[in-house]
């Protein structure tokens, strides 16, 4: 049983493999890019006329922005491009499971690890940009120097957890369908496939919410927190 789409290699040249993960990632990227380019080509800000595609896109962006704003009320628009891209990519990858032959690239540990590393780097980038290098690095030794290894351990383990959580959920979804196909009539795998769509959406939501929480925690300075406490 093929565990991940990594094993389906379509083209090989030297050490460079073109496997199903890369191919379907490109497909999802192309769909997102061309789709948004086509829609945003004719944006119209007047209230009289608004195309239905623009309406749909506005609903999506507004919903993501509202979710981010609930976690960190100020500066929510700074994180919107990063978090929204991650959310849309994971969502598209999971939702396209309804297309026959599609294999979600998020069912490969390489994809999810790449996404998690992106989040791990973005946390530092946003933290440094907001607080400056010295101030950001100082939060590692707060309240005492003993906390330094624990801070480092936390960051490593939460990045690993992000990757393995998404990978395990998506991979188990397609695997349960495969196992059920062997032992049950077609109706049961269909139900599990529909359940997999729900799981994929929830995981996309959780991934982006956790990314926002991590970024917000890195950006928020100690003084902010104390100020909020005494207000």
């Amino acid at each position, binding site marked *: 049983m093929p*565990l991940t789409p990594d094993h389906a290699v379509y083209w090989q040249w030297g050490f460079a493999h073109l496997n199903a993960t890369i191919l379907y990632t490109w497909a999802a990227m192309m769909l997102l890019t061309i789709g948004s380019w086509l829609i945003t080509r004719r944006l119209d800000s007047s209230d009289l006329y608004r195309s239905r595609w623009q309406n749909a896109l506005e609903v999506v962006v507004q919903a993501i922005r509202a979710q981010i704003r609930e976690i960190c009320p100020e500066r929510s628009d700074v994180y919107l491009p990063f978090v929204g891209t991650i959310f849309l990519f994971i969502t598209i990858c999971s939702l396209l499971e309804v297309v026959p032959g599609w294999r979600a690239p998020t069912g490969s540990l390489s994809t999810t690890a790449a996404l998690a590393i992106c989040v791990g780097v973005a946390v530092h980038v946003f933290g440094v940009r907001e607080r400056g290098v010295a101030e950001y690095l100082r939060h590692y030794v707060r309240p005492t120097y003993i906390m330094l290894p624990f801070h480092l351990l936390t960051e490593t383990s939460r990045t690993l*957890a992000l990757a393995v*959580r998404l990978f395990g959920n998506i991979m188990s979804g397609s695997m349960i369908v495969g196992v059920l196909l062997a032992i049950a009539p077609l109706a049961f795998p269909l139900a599990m496939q529909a359940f997999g769509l729900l799981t994929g959406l929830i995981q996309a939501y959780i991934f982006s919410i956790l990314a926002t*929480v991590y970024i917000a925690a890195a950006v928020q300075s100690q003084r902010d927190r104390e100020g909020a406490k005494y207000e």
Partner: protein
Amino acid sequence: MNSVTVIGITSIVAAALCMALGSIAPALGEARAIVQALSSIAQQPDEAGTISRTLFIGLAMIESIAIYCFVIAVILLFANPFWNYVSSKTGG
């Protein structure tokens, strides 16, 4: 009993134990979390949105423990490194 048999038996038993024990604890934890969230929503229906969002994040955190166990079990069953090592030694 050669080493391939030992590794096979151990892997299957370990995968079954990992899955069984590893799903009991997250199930209990999720049950507690849901019970608490439901009673909180019953007390304060206005805060249902915030409570359920936090509940979802917490459930995902708890459930990832079960998912880790699942990943370990799958690795033991389908991509066992010890099995691959021994079969490459004996086979080739």
